[in-house]
């Protein structure tokens, strides 16, 4: 058995080559979108040409599972642009080391950790994806709020993600609860439940189903809505009145990193002008003072002053209540 182990070890070494982290290279885990990653990495390479940046892109949920599973021997140096609600999981916070990236001090207090373990220069928003063709065919009014979705005419025409399996689902639920207050918020969710055709496990699925004309309305992400409109789908993006949910994209330094110097340089870069200029062309939601959101977003109906559409979200509260809210949701609406 021992001998066998030795031989497989030797074989493995022969087949390796990629796994060992050498100086001058960092591994970055991210949940940012494909297109922006491509451009950001190009800019970051230009800004720090001596460092090889290896990026692993996974969805928010998959990334969380991966980080926890790897906890015994973490492989990443940096977590970059990941949902702050997920980041606030104590098990994840424990993997992070406080580092105040230069420039992060400009961010408002709500957009960085008091202990310096994460900071969030950007974010993403929830939105209703409304299929205008289906709406017309079914003779439905354009929904403007969660309350509008109570209308029995929408029965079987609305989809949203399940907050128990999707961060986007939780984003919507917490926005309703925090803007309307606990009691009214739950009553609102209960009122739209009979119209819900599906609670999906993926956050972008409701928008994809709506754009394909499977359903009239999908509570989903503004990013997917914008992307779909750009591609030509008959879709309208609607921010529910009273405030739409949003999530911050946080970054932090892994305390296990073996190349902290370069990891810190990368985090500094995410707050540099080279990066923030790009945020302006990709991001609808930028928290860096003085940086405007993307023109495409504005064209698709995003107001210049996001404060008018965003819900007032207390992320610390949102992260703290997660388990209780999800359990209650499942009790009330689980199918």
């Amino acid at each position, binding site marked *: *058995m021992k001998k066998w*182990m*030795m031989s*497989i*070890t030797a*074989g*493995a*070494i022969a*087949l*390796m080559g*990629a*796994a060992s982290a050498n100086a001058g290279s960092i591994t970055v885990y991210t949940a940012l*979108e*494909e*297109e922006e990653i*491509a451009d950001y990495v190009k800019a970051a390479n230009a800004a720090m040409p001596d460092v090889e940046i*290896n990026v*692993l*892109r*996974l969805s928010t*949920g*998959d990334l*969380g*599972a*991966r980080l*926890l*599973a*790897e906890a*015994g*021997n973490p*492989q990443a140096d940096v977590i970059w642009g990941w949902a702050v609600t997920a980041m606030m*999981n104590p*098990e994840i916070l424990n993997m992070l080391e406080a580092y105040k990236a230069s420039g992060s001090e400009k961010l408002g207090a709500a957009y960085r950790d008091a202990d310096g373990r994460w900071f969030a220069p950007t974010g993403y928003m929830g939105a209703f994806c409304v299929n205008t063709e*289906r709406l017309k065919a079914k003779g439905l009014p354009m929904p403007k709020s969660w309350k509008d979705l109570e209308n029995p005419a929408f029965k*079987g025409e609305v989809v949203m993600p*399940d907050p*128990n*399996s*999707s*961060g986007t689902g939780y984003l919507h639920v917490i926005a309703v609860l925090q803007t309307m207050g606990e009691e009214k918020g739950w009553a609102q969710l209960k009122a739209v439940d009979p119209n819900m055709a*599906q609670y*999906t*496990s*993926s956050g972008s*699925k409701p*928008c*994809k189903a709506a754009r*394909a*004309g*499977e359903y009239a309305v999908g509570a989903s992400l503004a*990013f997917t809505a914008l992307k779909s409109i750009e*591609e*030509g*789908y*008959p879709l309208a993006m609607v921010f529910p009145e009273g405030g739409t949910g949003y999530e911050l994209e946080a970054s932090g330094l892994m305390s296990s990193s073996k190349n902290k110097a370069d990891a810190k340089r990368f985090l500094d870069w995410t707050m540099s002008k080279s990066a923030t200029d790009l945020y302006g062309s990709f991001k609808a939601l930028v928290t860096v003072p003085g940086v405007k959101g993307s023109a495409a977003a504005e064209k698709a109906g995003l107001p210049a002053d996001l404060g008018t559409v965003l819900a007032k979200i207390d992320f610390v509260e949102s992260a703290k209540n*997660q388990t209780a809210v*999800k359990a209650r949701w*499942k009790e009330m609406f*689980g*199918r």
Partner: protein
Amino acid sequence: MSAEPSAITTPLSNKHFDVDRAFVMISLTIPVIGLLLFFVYPLAIVFLRSITEADGGLGLGNYAHVLASKGFWRATGHSLHMGLATTAISIGLGFVIAHALHRCAFRGKVLIRAAIALPLLAPSLVQGLGLIFLLGRNGLVNKWFDLGLDIYGFWGLLIANIFYALPQAVMIIGATLTLSDARTYEAAEVMGARPIRQFLDITLPNAKFGVLSAAFVVFTVTITDFGNAAVIGGDYSVLATEIYSQVIGQMNFNMGAVVGIMLLLPTVASYYIERLAQKRQFGSHAENAVPFVPTFTPARDLPMAAASFLIAALIAIVIVVVVYASFVKLWPYNFGMTVKHYDITLAGGYAPLWTTIYISLAAAIGGTVMLFLLGLGIRKAPDAIAKAVYFFSVMPAAVPGMVIGLAYVLTFNSTATPLYLLYGTATLLAVCNFYHYHTQGFLTAMTGFRQVPSALEEAASCLGSSMTRIAIDVVAPYVTPMLISIFFFLFMRSMVTLSAVIFLTTPKMTVASVTIMRLDDAGLTSQAAAYSTCIMLIVGAALMMMKYVFYRMDKRSTLGTVV
């Protein structure tokens, strides 16, 4: 042949005693070590997580918590219901197709074989998309006939699961029907047994092992599959979605592990039911069997052919509609044709395709060799050992891909053993793919090994052949068609499987199915469909090349592959 796969005892001549013993030892030991290291050990780590409580102590608190939740019981009910329905239908249809392919005479079988293989070589996104494009609320069928069909939920999930399970059922059942003794049928004919009698009294009892094995596999893969449930299951919650919601949605790994371990229970139960049923196994394979060559019999062949072509056409159309959509400007609003979706630069572009081919070949070659050795070894092993090995060999299908993937991360990313050197390598991905699909391959191999006439082996042994010679000259020719089926099966699945490997990819080691998922995540569904089409083309081409190679290698053989 008796009930146990192990129970054939061949008298070993003294001359070869040591060499033969060593041969049996080696052919059993290597695959068993592999199974222990790459399946049992990671699974044990998952089990450990399932009994690790929030405060870090060990206990059954997680189990109590899960058992007390309403959602778990609802999902369990749904899973059992779905599993039984899928099994009943898939086995029925699978038997029809396998019987048509191996026991009927008609033209165009190659088309049926190709169509049946499609769900194995199509990325899971394709099947889900295809069903929605066709049967969705805004799908073609509803548009043309205005039926107001709503497939999301039980029915959609049932259809998707059957499509996925059917090729596996055909493969395993086919392995029992490939080889049969024409003389038994001739004798029946002479004695005046009508064809229906022959079918009920000869064919069916002989196929029992294959049918039961196939039923076991279908039931198990159905209750562990997450992909179909997420795409088309609507909010019909099943145990696999329950695990997803715990692990991915709530980052609650230990709770997910509990549900993963619970998923083994129905499998253990169905394993025992299957073993019990086998105790009454009928018939055996005769030594100098004459292969059954079907002659055209209209009353039998026409309906069988019609049914098979119909099923094959339904499967093919679901895939073809996605290929078509990948050339359409904007499905379902602008049906102008374009190739722009094939210009893929994001998410790694086309580069991961070549890595994937390499990984898949490694999984298929290594896996086939391992299963051949295991098949040889398990027949000569002591009964108790054979039973234990059999049990763990059929278990991998009961573990959802996500659980296997995360178990691999937990196991092979730990510096406690030198195995961590495998982490992030193509080797580990290939190994993971093989063990993920171990059950299907193993049961096909076992079904094949059951057809080897034991008297022929005994004769060869008495005449002084060594075990090695017997393995090559006696056993191998009988099991070759099954081995080729296993090879293709492992290759096809490795090319497209996602649920486990998603957790094992690194920035430098990524595979094609992950690229598809990333494209779809980015909202570029048409590009994901285009990429899937490329994979299917490449896999199809590779399969044809390999078939040609096998054909050249084994010109004497008249045996076809099972799928």
